[in-house]
C-alpha cells in the first residue's frame, strides 16, 4: 500500500505547489496591471474604510448577487458558506494541537458539508432548467460542479456510511510537512476524495475559480470614489503626458 501513499504524497506536493505558485503568479499579474481610470460602480464609498466595508459585504454576504438574483444567491451562499465551515473543520488534519475554535466548529462542519452539496445541486439544476443559464454554460462549468459535488458527497459518505481511519489521515498529512511519507488508509472513498481535492487545487489558478482573488482586484468594487479630490494617473498614462 505504500505505493499508493507515495503517489498521493507527490500528487499533494505537486498540487500545493501549483496552487500556491499559480495563484501567486496571478495575483502578481493583477497587482502589476494598472487601473488607469476611476471606474467604481457608483454609488461607491468615498473613503478607503468604506471600500473595505463594501468588499467585506461582497465577500461575506454576496451583496451584489443578492440584488441580482435570489435563487443564485441562496444556493451560491449555501455552497460557499458550507465550504467555509467544511474547510475550518478539516483544519484539524493540518494543525497540531488543534485550536479550540476549530474543535468547537467540528459539528458545524458536518452541517456545512450538507449545505454545500445542497447548494451545489441547486446551482447545477439551474444550468439545466433556466434557458439563459443553459446557454452560457460550457462543459467546464459542468465538470467543476461535478468535481465539487463529488468531493462533498465522498466526504459526507465517509462521515455517515464508511468511516476511514482519520488518525492515519492526519499522520499522513503531518508527515508531508517533514518529507516523511506515512501510510494512507486504502479506503476507496478516501482516495477518491483526496484525488479530487488535489485536482481542484491544480485547476484553481487556471479556471474560473480565479473569481476568488479577482473580486479583490475588481476596480468597479475596490476603488474609492474620489476622482475630483485626488488625481489618479497610471504609470503608462503619465508617460503619455511627459511625451508631449
Amino acid at each position, binding site marked *: 500500500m505504500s505505493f499508493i501513499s507515495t503517489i498521493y504524497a507527490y500528487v499533494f506536493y505537486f498540487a500545493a505547489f501549483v496552487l500556491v505558485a499559480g495563484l501567486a503568479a496571478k495575483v502578481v499579474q493583477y497587482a502589476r496591471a494598472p487601473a488607469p481610470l476611476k471606474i467604481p460602480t457608483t454609488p461607491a464609498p468615498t473613503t478607503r474604510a468604506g471600500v473595505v466595508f463594501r468588499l467585506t459585504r461582497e465577500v461575506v454576504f454576496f451583496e451584489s448577487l443578492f440584488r441580482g438574483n435570489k435563487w443564485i444567491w441562496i444556493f451560491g451562499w449555501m455552497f460557499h458558506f458550507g465550504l467555509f465551515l467544511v474547510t475550518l473543520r478539516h483544519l484539524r488534519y493540518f494543525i497540531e494541537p488543534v485550536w479550540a475554535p476549530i474543535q468547537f466548529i467540528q459539528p458545524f462542519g458536518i452541517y456545512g458539508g450538507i449545505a454545500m452539496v445542497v447548494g451545489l445541486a441547486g446551482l447545477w439544476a439551474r444550468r439545466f432548467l433556466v434557458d439563459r443559464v443553459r446557454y452560457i454554460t460550457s462543459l467546464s462549468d459542468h465538470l467543476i460542479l461535478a468535481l465539487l459535488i463529488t468531493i462533498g458527497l465522498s466526504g459526507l459518505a465517509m462521515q455517515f456510511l464508511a468511516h476511514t481511519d482519520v488518525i492515519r489521515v492526519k499522520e499522513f498529512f503531518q508527515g508531508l510537512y517533514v518529507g516523511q511519507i506515512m501510510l494512507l488508509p486504502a479506503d476507496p472513498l478516501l482516495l477518491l476524495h483526496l484525488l479530487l481535492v488535489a485536482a481542484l487545487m491544480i485547476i484553481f489558478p487556471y479556471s474560473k475559480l480565479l473569481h476568488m482573488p479577482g473580486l479583490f482586484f475588481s476596480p468597479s468594487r475596490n476603488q474609492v470614489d474620489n476622482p475630483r479630490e485626488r*488625481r489618479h494617473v497610471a504609470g503608462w498614462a503619465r508617460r503619455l503626458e511627459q511625451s508631449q
Partner: protein
Amino acid sequence: MAKADFEVPVLKQYPEIPEIEPGVMAHSSPFKSKEEFQAPLGYPGTLVDDWQEKAIDKMGELLGRYRGLRVYLDSCVKCGSCTDKCHYYLGTHDPKNMPVGRQDLMRKVYRRYFTLAGKYFPKLVGAEDFTEEVLNDWYSYFHQCSQCRRCSVFCPYGIDTAEISMAAREIMDHIGVGQKYCNEIIGKVYKIGNNLGLPGPALEDTLEGLEEDVYDDTGVEVKYPLDQEGAEILLITPSADFFAEPHVDGLIGYGKVFHEAGVSWTLSSHASEAANFGMFIGSYENMRRVALRIREAAIKLGVKRIVFGECGHAWRVAYSFLNTLAGPWDFLDQRYPIPQHICEFTYDLIQQGKLRFDKSQNDDMVLTYHDSCNVSRASRMGDRPGGQFDIPRAIIRATCNNFYDMDEDTIRDRTFCCGGGGGLLTDDLMEIRVKGAQPRVEALNNVMQEKGVTHMAAICAICKSQFTKVLPYYGMDMDQIVSVHQLVSNALILTGQNTDEDEEEVADEAA
C-alpha cells in the same frame, strides 16, 4: 406612431424575462467607418492584412494596460445573475445581448490565446480562434452595448461589460474596423470643436437668438456669452444643447440660473462639446485629446471654475476622468468642485435660498425622472454617494408640484439606459435603439397609467435625443421628454422680470 420595419416590443404591465432567441439581432450592425474618418484618429482605414495577429497583439497590450479587463475576463463564473439585466437583452431576446453573452464573445478569444486551459483544451472551456465570423459578431454585438454598467451592479465581482465593449472597439479600430458614427464625430471635435460640427459663428448666432427669446419672454437681459475672456465660469455643455429640442430649453435654464447667481460665465467655441466619444471607442488617447480641449479653453479664457451642462456620458468623463486626463487643475478656484455639474450649481443656490420659483408654471406637466445611466452608475454629485440621484430630484421638486418616481427596480443605480447611449445614437441602429428602450418605456408607461405622469425629465443629451426619436414608436409623443433645467427655466422668477404672473407671486408670498 412611427413606422418601423421591425417588430416594436409590446409594453407590459409587469416586466417579463423573455426566453432566449439566439441570433435574432446578428444582422444589426452600424455603418463602418472609412479612411477619411479613421485617419484623424490614428487608425487604419480598412481591415489590415494580418488583422488577426494585430488584434491579438492589441488585446495583449490592453490586458497589460487595464487591470479591470483581465480580472473581468478571468473572473466570470457564469452564475447567470446578469443574464436578465441588460435592456438590450430584455428588448431583443438575443442571448448575445445578455451581459455574459456579450463578454463571452471576447472571453472565448482571450481564453484561446492567453490562458493555459484555452490553449490546450479549447472545447472544454469554450475557447475559440479569432475568426472572421467571430470578428463579425464582435462588430455587431459590441455595438449593441450602451456601456450603461447596469450589469456591473448585479455581478458578484462587479464585472463591467462596458470595459469589455470599450476594449473590443479599441481592438477593432486598430485593425481598421471602426464605427462611422463615433469616429466621424470625434474627427469633427478635432476639426471644429464639437460633435455636431457647429462653427463659432453659428454658435454666436444661436446664442444671440436665445438672448432675444429670453428677453421677449421675461423682459430681462440674460446673456449667453461665447469666448468671453476673464469670465468666472466656463460652461461645457453638449452641442445638442445649442439647437435640439428639448436640450436648448435646458441651456436657456442654465443661463437664467447663472444670471440669478450673479456670476459671469462663458461658453467656448474651442471646447463647445461636453460629450467625449473617445470613451465610447475605448481609446484613452482620443479621450484624452478631446478632454485636453477643455483644459486649453479654460487656460485661454482665464476662467476660475468649470461647470458641465446636462449630459450623461459626458458627466462620467468629467467627474471621473477629467482630473486624470487633463489635470491637475491647480489654476482653478479650489473652493469649488472641479468640475461641477450644473445640477450641483443650481442645487446649491436653491439650498441658499437664492432662487425664487413659481412652481405653478410647470403645472401643465406631471413629471417623472429618468436617471441617466452614466450619471447614476459612473459618477456622483454633491458630497455624498447617491447625490447623483437626490440632487436632480430635489431640483425637480423645487420647481414642480407634480412628481412621481417610476418603479424602484428601474431607477437610481438600477436605472435602465435609454437605449441610445455609448455610441449607438445613430439612425443605422434604429432597431436596437427602439428595442433597447423597451424596459425604460415600459416603466414610464406604467407611471403614466397609474399616476397620470405626462412628462419625463432627464439630464442627458443622448437620453433626450433618443426618447424624442423612440417614444413615437411606442405610441407616445416626442415632446414627453424634457430637460431638468427646462423645468428650472419655466419656474424661475428672474429679478426684475415683467410678470404677467404678478398675482400668483402675491399668492405665493401669502402662502
